[in-house]
């Protein structure tokens, strides 16, 4: 499993694409926001937490189809499925690799992009924390969507259509933590709910993803 993780990480870093692309997308979305809603700092600081969460979520979405697609095409996914590892574990490792390469950079970059949107002072730490806790759920849910659409020719759009509704609860609680944090309110309840969603998704969804992958590979 560790070998698989290293392999996926090395592939993501060396093959390029996913790693820097998601981050650049996040940057561009953040830069486009003031163009669309106007440059008033007061207005920007109100919407900053929500925009940053949405931007991170969309950037995460971009790289989802790469989780399984490349391995599916060259046949290594078949090999992995017949390997002595449980498929659930493989799916989890793949999601973890996606999180490390695609989501973690976004989490680290988000506070820096918060400066562009005039995020209020106390908001930075909560934005960072909520993304840190919430993005694992995004990766795991996304890997389920990627497993569903892995065999399809034009899976990309369908993948967004399937995954985005599943992202709703995570987005609501994550953005709520960031918003309340930015306004200096108590964040405990949404933070716990967010952590609950992440933990629940991490514990249960790999079984669904593995079941789906088995169907797609037969």
């Amino acid at each position, binding site marked *: 499993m560790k070998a698989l993780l290293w392999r996926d990480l090395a592939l993501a870093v060396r093959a390029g694409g996913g790693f820097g692309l998601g981050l650049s997308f996040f940057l561009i979305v953040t830069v486009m926001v003031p163009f669309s809603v106007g440059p008033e700092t007061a207005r920007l600081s109100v919407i900053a937490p929500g925009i940053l969460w949405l931007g991170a979520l969309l950037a995460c979405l971009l790289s989802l189809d790469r989780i399984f697609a490349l391995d599916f095409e060259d046949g290594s996914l078949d090999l992995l499925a017949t390997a002595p590892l449980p498929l659930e574990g493989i799916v989890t490792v793949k999601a973890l690799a996606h999180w490390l390469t695609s989501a973690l950079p976004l989490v680290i970059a988000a506070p820096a992009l918060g400066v562009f949107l005039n995020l209020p002072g106390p908001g930075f730490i909560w934005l960072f924390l909520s993304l840190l806790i919430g993005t694992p759920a995004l990766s795991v849910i996304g890997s389920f969507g990627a497993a569903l659409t892995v065999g399809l020719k034009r899976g990309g759009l369908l993948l967004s*259509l399937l995954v985005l509704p599943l992202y709703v609860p995570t987005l609501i609680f994550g953005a709520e933590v960031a918003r309340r944090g930015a306004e200096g309110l108590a964040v405990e309840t949404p933070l716990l709910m967010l952590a609950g969603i992440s933990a629940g998704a991490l514990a249960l969804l790999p079984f*669904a993803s593995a079941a789906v992958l088995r169907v797609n590979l037969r």
Partner: protein
Amino acid sequence: MSLWEYANPVRFIRLTDRLLPPVAVGALVCLVIGLIWGFFFTPDDYRQGSTVKIIYLHVPAALMAINAWLMMLVASLIWIVRRHHVSALAARAAAPVGATMTVIALATGAIWGQPMWGTWWAWDPRLTSFLILFLFYLGYMALWEAIENDDTAADLTSILCLVGSVFALLSRYAVNFWNQGLHQGASLSLDKEENVADVFYLPLLVCIAGFVLLFVALVFLRTQTEIRARRMRALIARERLA
């Protein structure tokens, strides 16, 4: 004699052929009686005026939108556990009907909301979760369309239905937390002392019965169509091989 007998497509078609006329006629009768009764023979509400009468479309449609998803969930489970093709096809057949019910509920709600709340749309928990439910229907139907192999499609969509149900519930409570609502509480419920006043209640019940029967009739019909379409594909494939 057990329910599983009708997992056989031939038996299922024979049964539904017999049930379809009475169910369809029942739906028509209930809807005509309920809607005419509701629209013309009930008093106007003293605050809402005649707009209250949209309840006869709105509440049954909303009810069926949720119950259609529940039916799909049960049918998906049956497919996963017992591998009856009719069950998977029934789930597929119910999805567009449920999506249409969701649209009817949202549209009638908006038409009522314009004069009453002064807005077509508000990000109220109930409205929002219905919109999310509609997105789930869209994703479910799109996945059915996208996959060519029938069994693969049935497997994948049924798992999506299970996962989607969990997340739809989660979303329901998440949006509750997220925003306070404009929408009034439930108009009907079994364990409540007082529902809407009797004058509105009885025609509403008739309308609900009409919608339920309409849903059953449509699902029967669409499942038959799916079965026959699949048979036809099988025949064409055999023809090509020969």
